């Protein structure tokens, strides 16, 4: 039971961090609950479908199907996060002023909630397919399946609680800073995803360059420890990164900063953040 709890909790926390940040970033936007729920539902459905076709996917593209799928999902999420941040740079200021003025009632207009809903969906899809596969294996073995399923359910509940914690933690940030904070969080999230994506491409055999390991901080902060895992999801912490991973990470941050700078409306000299 404990094993199931730990595995499910771990995957749910990873998706939950992203959902928590998205919820905080869309604070005060009407109908965001619907969008985020839609994203979660679509992601869960997709996770089931991926788990169902896991074998076919694994065997596709000379055995690199799973890696290529992961890389594509991460790549798509990075693009969506870039779009979101660029949009926020363009419109975030009015929203902040409005929010500070009237509290929560913001008429946000055409926020690209689709972008963030897609990000939520992709996160749930990626982590969820592992949970589904694992639970399927539990059911397949039959023995003591009930207690393992209880463990899984508890893991899911604890993961959801963690999502709530992330969200309410971010809510403690004053309204006038929240967009800046979530913009930075989203940029780091995207950079981490990009670094993961290139590693999947490397594992797929699609790219084979700059694969040299830059450093090894696994004795200081192992990536598979709890804090290591959280930082891995949150800011893309990797204890043994390759050159290509660092380049992808920094390039993503650079592109996001540039996009934000370009998208920020002209009036007066304002910092890029």
């Amino acid at each position, binding site marked *: 039971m404990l*094993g199931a709890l730990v595995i499910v909790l771990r995957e749910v926390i990873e998706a939950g961090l992203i959902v928590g940040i998205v919820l905080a970033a869309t604070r005060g936007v009407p109908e965001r609950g619907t969008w985020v729920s839609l994203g979660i539902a679509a992601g869960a459905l997709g996770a089931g479908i991926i788990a169902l076709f896991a074998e076919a996917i694994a065997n596709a593209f000379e*055995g*690199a199907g799973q890696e290529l799928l992961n890389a594509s999902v991460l790549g798509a999420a990075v693009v969506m996060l870039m779009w979101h941040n660029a949009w926020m740079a363009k419109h975030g200021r009015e929203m902040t002023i409005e929010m500070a003025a009237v509290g929560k009632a913001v008429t946000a207009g055409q926020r690209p909630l689709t972008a963030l809903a897609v990000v939520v969906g992709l996160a749930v899809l990626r982590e969820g397919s592992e949970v589904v*596969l694992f639970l399927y294996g539990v059911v397949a073995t039959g023995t003591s399946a009930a207690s393992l399923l209880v463990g899984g359910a508890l893991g899911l509940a604890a993961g959801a609680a963690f999502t709530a914690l992330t969200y309410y933690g971010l809510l403690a940030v004053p309204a006038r800073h929240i967009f800046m904070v979530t913009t930075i969080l989203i940029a780091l999230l995207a950079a981490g995803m990009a670094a993961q994506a290139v590693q999947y491409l*490397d594992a797929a055999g699609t790219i084979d*360059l700059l694969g040299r390991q830059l450093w090894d901080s696994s004795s200081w902060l192992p990536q598979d420890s709890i804090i290591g895992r959280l930082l891995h999801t949150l800011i893309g912490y990797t204890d043994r990164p390759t050159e290509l991973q660092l380049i992808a990470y920094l390039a993503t941050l650079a592109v996001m900063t540039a996009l934000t700078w370009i998208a920020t409306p002209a009036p007066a000299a304002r910092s890029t953040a």
Partner: protein
Amino acid sequence: MRGFALALVLMLSAGASVGGAAAAQEFNLTIRNHKFEPAEIRVPAGKRVSIYVSNEDATPEEFESAALKVEKVIPGKSKGLVRIGPLAPGRYEFIGDFHSDTAKGVVIAE
């Protein structure tokens, strides 16, 4: 090292080396009763290596290693290909994430 650099140049000139075509050395690994057999694989350092993981259990397993930078789900009763390297000489531990108490192994690059 020079051999590797040369291989790299060749791959780059061949354009995005589809499927790691430069004849990566192949190894086999079996998952049985939530254990890896063999639990220790010796591979050449500094080279791309392909490990075919055959999962004979009915349950899925996830071949996972932060050291090797691999996370790969292998469904029950099927095979998965794990591409690793080039590795510096050393020990690289891996686990079966869904049964991490029994499924443990190590890749030794030399």
